[in-house]
Every structure is written in C-alpha cells, then in structure tokens.
C-alpha cells in the first residue's frame, strides 16, 4: 500500500517540478536573484510577463536563498553558468561584485533614473531603493524616538530587535548606517544602544516577527515596511521612525554577466527594468521605492522618499575595505 502511495506521490512530485517545455525557437534569458524577488508575491512574475511580451524570448528567474547567494552561485558556476543577469545585489556588496570582473558594461540609458544620492556604475543598473529605519507601532508607542541620540538615551525603556550583520543585509546596513551618521563616534553609539537590544537575529524575518508579536517595540527594517501594512492589510498603526541624523539607503542593482551569450537580450532587460511599466510593478511587490518618477505617482498610502539631505550612503570603496572592522567594533560594544 505504501508503495502505491509512493508512486502516486512521485508522479505528482515530478509533475510539479518538471519545467514547462521551452519552445526551441525562443532564447532563454536566465536571471539569478533572491527568492523573495522571484516568488509569485514578488516582482518576478510581473516583470517576466512584461518583458516576454516584447522580447520574443523566455525569461527564467532562478531564486537563490539570498542576494549574495545569487552572486555566489554564479561565481561558483564559473564560465558554465546559465545566468545572464544577476539581480538584487545591493550597494554593500557592489564593490566586491565589481571586483570579480564578471560583469559587463550595462550600456543602459539611465537618464530617467533619479536616486536620492549620487550613484553611478558602469556595470550595475539600480532598479529600486529603500531606507533603513526603525519600525514601530503607534498604538503601543505614541512617542517614538526621533533621532539616534534619542534612541540611545532610552536604554531600558525600550526594546529593539536587530539582525546579525554577518548573516543579514539589513543587519549590515544598520552598522553602516551608524558609521555613516557618526563616523568614529559610532562605537559610542553602539555602547549606548546595547541595553535596549533584546536580541540579534539571523535574518530579517525573525526580527520582524518579534516585532509583530509584540516582543519588541521597534525593529530594524525599511521606511517602506509600513506601506505594506497600510495597503495590503489596511492597518495604519505601523510607522517608521524618522531620525534627525538621516537614514542609510540601500540601492538594489542588476548587472549582466560577461559570460552570457544573450548580451543583447540581457541589456534589453536592464533597460526594460527602468521603464515606466516595470518600475510601476516594484512598489507593491517588492515594497521598495522605484528609481524613476512614476507617471501615475506612487500608490496611495505608500511611503514618501526622503530628501537628499536625509540620505546617507558610504561609498563602495570604504565599505569594501572596512566592513569587517565595522562589524567587529559593533560586536565589541554591544556585548
């Protein structure tokens, strides 16, 4: 009996994992990205449909477990990689990615792109961005801190959740944020915030889960997180605390691999990525800001981008050279 069950299950399973037959004529554009992007809740499906409508090709998103994972996957596959594009790298990895010399010049027209800071790269096309911020519930915390200094002063009156910079991008972003805002004084900042830290989790999901469960008052996330709750859940209580010192920005990038034999298609996709049609998909699927001015504006209830003066970013070179040192100092201070 169990053998029959096994056969049926096997058939089911194989059926569900068999990839759809790919028509011989159409070339395939393979894009490595992080799982969240390619899942059907993310922008992947919409972008795929949009580009396939005009490119006469098949777009295949392949999801690795994280953005860095996508890069590593391509690196490990070397020349035989199927990937044409790596999508979803963020600015903190950009330096290292560029140094791999795996990426070709993108050649896209980025005149419509408007970022809160100056970011130019020959290899990478930015397609969305977000600001790190602490998110809180205005019902339980009517008076959130309005600056890092204020947060540092709250000590035991507040509980926050952070992510481990060694295993999480927002975690790393937080450390860079502190350094960008305070320079060498960041170390003092960590020490003062330490009593408020409830725990440092492996990834964003765990920390955010703690926040939603009410275990912490604030969690490190994005200024766009409240937008999800407002729009998808019609919950107005979640807000992002805007700090006087400014917020660190995370720009997400995409690049074409030199090894790809679909250079034209790939570059075409990158161009498509910054078009009105593609960018309109981004806000309510990836919950980040589009890089161009949308014709119809941002969706109702969506957060607003911050001004340039409020935006912080460390340059690639600094990040590349000092990440380890920053992280080390961070841990020293919060122990």
């Amino acid at each position, binding site marked *: 009996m169990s053998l029959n069950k096994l056969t049926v299950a096997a058939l089911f399973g194989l059926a569900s994992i068999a990839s759809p037959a790919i028509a011989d004529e159409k070339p395939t554009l393979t894009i490595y990205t992080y799982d969240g992007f390619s899942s059907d809740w993310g922008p992947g499906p919409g972008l795929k449909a949009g580009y396939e409508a005009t490119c006469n090709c098949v777009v295949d998103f392949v999801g690795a477990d994280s953005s860095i994972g996508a890069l590593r996957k391509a690196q490990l596959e070397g020349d035989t990689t199927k990937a044409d594009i790596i999508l979803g790298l963020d600015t903190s990895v950009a330096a290292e990615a560029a140094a791999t010399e795996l990426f070709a010049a993108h050649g896209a027209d980025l005149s419509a792109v408007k970022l809160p800071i100056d970011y130019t790269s020959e290899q990478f096309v930015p397609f969305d961005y977000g600001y790190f911020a602490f998110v809180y519930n205005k019902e339980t915390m009517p008076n959130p801190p309005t600056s890092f200094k204020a947060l540092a002063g709250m000590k035991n009156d507040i509980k926050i959740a952070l992510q481990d910079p060694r295993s999480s991008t927002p975690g790393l972003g937080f450390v860079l944020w502190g350094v960008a805002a305070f320079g060498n004084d960041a170390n003092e900042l960590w020490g003062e915030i330490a009593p408020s830290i409830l*725990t440092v989790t492996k990834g964003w*999901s765990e920390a955010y889960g703690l926040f939603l469960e009410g275990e912490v008052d604030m969690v490190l996330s994005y200024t766009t997180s409240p937008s999800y709750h407002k729009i998808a859940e019609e919950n107005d209580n979640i807000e992002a605390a805007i700090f006087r010192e400014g917020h660190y920005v995370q720009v997400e990038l995409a690049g074409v691999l030199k090894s790809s034999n679909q250079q034209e298609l790939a570059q075409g996709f990158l161009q498509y990525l910054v078009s009105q049609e593609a960018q309109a998909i981004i806000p309510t699927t990836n919950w980040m800001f589009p890089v161009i001015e949308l014709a119809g504006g941002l969706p109702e209830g969506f957060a607003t981008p911050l001004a340039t003066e409020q935006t912080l970013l460390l340059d690639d070179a600094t990040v590349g050279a000092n990440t380890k040192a920053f992280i080390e100092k961070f841990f020293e201070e919060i122990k």
Partner: protein
Amino acid sequence: MQLWVRTPKPSSKSSLKKSNNSVWSRFGSGATSAHITTRLTLGLLIALGVGALIGALLAIIWQAADLFGNSSTSSTDLWHLLRMSSIQAGLSVLLAFATGGFTAIALSRLYVPAKPLILAFLSAGLVLPTLVVAFGLLSIWGRSGLINDINMALGGDRLPISVFGLHGILAAHTVLNGSFAARVFYDRLQAIPNTSLKLGQSLNLSGWQRYTILDWPVLKATMPGLGATIFLMCFTSFSVVLLLGGGPNNATFEVAIFEAVRLDFDLHRAALLAASQLAFCLLIIIPTASLKSTSLMVGGTQTYLWTSRSFSKSTLSVGLVIMLIAYASPLLIIVWNGIDVAIIELVQTRRFVNALTTSIFVATTSATLTLLLALTLAFARADLVYKASENANNVIIRTVLNAPVFAYLAMPSIVLGLGFFLLARLLGLDTDEVGIYVVILANALLALPLANATLGPPVEEISAKHRKLMRSLNLGNWQRITQIELPLVRKQCAYIFALGFSFSFGDLGVIALFGTNDFTTLPWLMYRALGAYRSNDAGMIAAILLIISVFSFYIIPKLLGGKQNA
C-alpha cells in the same frame, strides 16, 4: 534426602568481574575480533559512504577556495563561540533527559487517556522547523505572550521574566528535544516484560525501587545515542540560538562559518571551521559510537499497566500534566494562532498545493531511504554481537559503523549546501534539476542519526538475546531478517518512517544554492511568506505543518506498525 545438587562455587577471578570502565580501555585487546559478514559489509559501506561524503564535501570546498573566494580574517571570537555552544548543548541534553525521563516514567505508571495521541504530539516537537517552536514559546512566555496577558488581566504587573538569554535557548531546546526523549524513553520502557512488572508489583516495590531496578537499566541503554544526537543538534542550532539568545554572547559556532561562506566568501576558512567543528564534535561522537547496547529488553509486547498509587500517583500525575502542558503549549498555540478562516482559501491556492505535493513526495522518499539505511546499519551492528563470542569487543568496527552517521549532524547546513552544490557541479549534473534529489538525500541523512539511535539498540538486543538459538538453527540472513528481526522491530520501523517523513516536512533543506522556483516545499513556502511580510500566511502554514506532523506520527505507526502500536 538431598533435594538439590551442589554445583561448584564459581571462582571470583572470572570474566564476570566488573570490567574496567574507562572509555579508552575498550579499544584494547579484542577490539578487532569480528567476523566479517555480508550484513556487516553492507553496513560498513553505508557508514564509510557517509563519512566519505562528508570528507568529500569539505575537500571540495577547500579546493574551490583556490578557484574563487577571498581570504580574510574573522571578526569573531572562536573560542568563546565554541565554549558557549558546548555549554548550551550540554545543558540542553541534561534538561532533555531529566524532563523526558520523568515524562516517560509517569506515562508508564499512570492510566492516561488518549495515550497514542499524546505520544504523537511528543514526537512532533522535534521535527518542526525550530523557528516555529521558538515563536510558539514566545507566544506563551514572551513579553506579549499568553502568560503575561493572563497575568495582567488578573491585575498583576508584567512579569519580570525574559525569555531571552541562555534560559530561553535552553527552554526551546528542552521543548524540542525533551519531548522526543520522552517518546524514545517510553518506547524502551514498554519493552519491559509483563512478568517483571507483575513481579515487582507483587513484591510491593516502592516507586524508587521500581525506578532503580526496572526503569533505569532500560533508560540507561538509550542515553548515549540519544544524548549524542541531541547534543549535536543543539550545538548546531543556529537561528533559534540567535533569536532567543538575546545577543552575540550566546551565538553558536556556526555563525562564524556562516560569515565565512556568505559574507566573506572565504572558502578556505569555511572548510577549516567546518572541519574544526566536526573534530570537536567527534570528541562526543566517538565514545558514544563505540558503546555496545547493554539492555536485554526486546519486543515491546507489554500489555500490563502497573499503576502507581496514592502519593506517588498524585505527584506523578501533577508532574506529568505540567510536563505535557510545557511541551504541548508552544505547539498548540501555533495551531491556535494559525487556524483562520483564510486557511480554506490558502490550501486551495496553486502554490500551496504544489508545495504540499512536493513535500509529500520528498518526505516519503527520504523516509524510505532513512529506514533502509537505518535497518542496514542496525543489522550490521547486530552481526557484531551475533557471530562474536560472549565478551568480544569489536570496538573499532562498532565505532566505524556509528560515528559517520552522527558526524553528519555536526556539519552546518550552509556547508552541506555549498558542498552538495559543488559536488553536483563536479559530477556534471544540472543543479537546477537535481535540487530535489539533493534535498531527499540530505533529509534522509539528517534523520538517520535519530533513526539509528532508535532502531540500533532493539535490533542489537534481539541478536544478543536470541543468537544462540538462531545460530543453532543455522538461520540464513533472509530468514533471520524476515521472520525474526523485522517482526520484532516492526513498531520501531513504523515509527522511524514517521520520523523521517515528518523531519523532511519540517526541514528547510540544503537547497540554498540550487534554485528554488520550480521546487518548493511547505516549510520553504512558509519562510517565503515570512520574508514577504505575510506573517498570517506563514502562521497558517506553520499550523498545517504541525498538524501534518502530529497526524503522521499518529497514523503511520497505526498503519505500518502491526498490532501492538501504542
């Protein structure tokens, strides 16, 4: 009239004297006097195969470092991590044994309604994604948890206890592992023959005497294998430790490895760190792997219930209820939180159905694989006892049989994922296609140590107890397996199948680099939902996972386990 015949008094200097108990003395003479049989060969092949796989994975990673990867220095204090990991793992084992042992003993001494359901529940804790259980704990004990809510509703202040810190980690680990230990211990206690129970009761043995004379010898035999497994799982428990640890002071060694692989892409260091973690764990694994099973209880045909009375009964009852609530509450609250009207819609979505069927396929296949591997290993172990003379040691072979299986647990999943990926590439396989098979293999190997610890002692004991008879009848291998060994351990086999099945459902696998789009399992779907702000969906999936686990532990033993399947 002489009513008996005087037999000569045995000399005191016989081999019956208590042997030197030092661990390493076992590796002395007699260590290699085993006869090599077919079963033994097969078992050794599997064990060495797993060992070779681990070695290959590490070697490949090391080699890959030359081709890609950077080198850098670590920003973490390794000794501290090693110390912390060991302390929390060691304490977890002790707590799991204490709570699990108590629960098992209480269950075997009281009349408890719905025992099969309770037992199924006890097994489920271990196989769920650990994060689910951790959040379940928080739902009860956390700042905004049930306890605090009740307390404040009754007018009290917020309780000063914080779940975060070492005690939080230990609590989560105890819930996860203690419940499973209880299940395993209970199974062993059920192997005590009816007549021994009746004898003990007729002699009016006290509760304590019952423990020392009947229960303890049986529990003792299971502890090494079970303990080593629990230690290793707690040692490598990553996200739970970070979640409940309250800060970097309580991180595990795996954080350093994660950093090397993910952030720094320093593969030399990653391989080195993984190898050192493995080497350290071998200190625990090797002594455990070399032990012979000493109990002589087999079969689990117990039908008689010797209930405790009066004071003992009330203490045990109260204690049992407390234990069961402690174990079950984090799980029950997951179901409570997760069950929502929206679940009806969720289970009909294509993505859910896909994930469910994939999960079932993967789970069934890897459970079968686990069972086959565990049986082969168990039969091999049994042969060490079968053909040998009474006191032969066979320690080295025994160690070789058992150690690699445990060693697999000592490998961090990120290293496994990377290693499997590189191995697949080396073999020229298309990584997008083989992802599912890697997951099946990885899950099977993950459940194998537990399966081994559960199945090994009973099979070995059958040989120990019946070997003279079996040998004198000159039973062939096939006969031995089908007519004697399998029927006697049918219950355990069914349980192991359920275990492998549920483990696979709850495990997120090593598919990190393999590409996850076409191939999704339920736990992966849950994680995906969590990452997309959809905590409600994630909660519903978690509840479904739990129900499936409990259900399979309840149903599979009934279906496959033969008549006695309490």
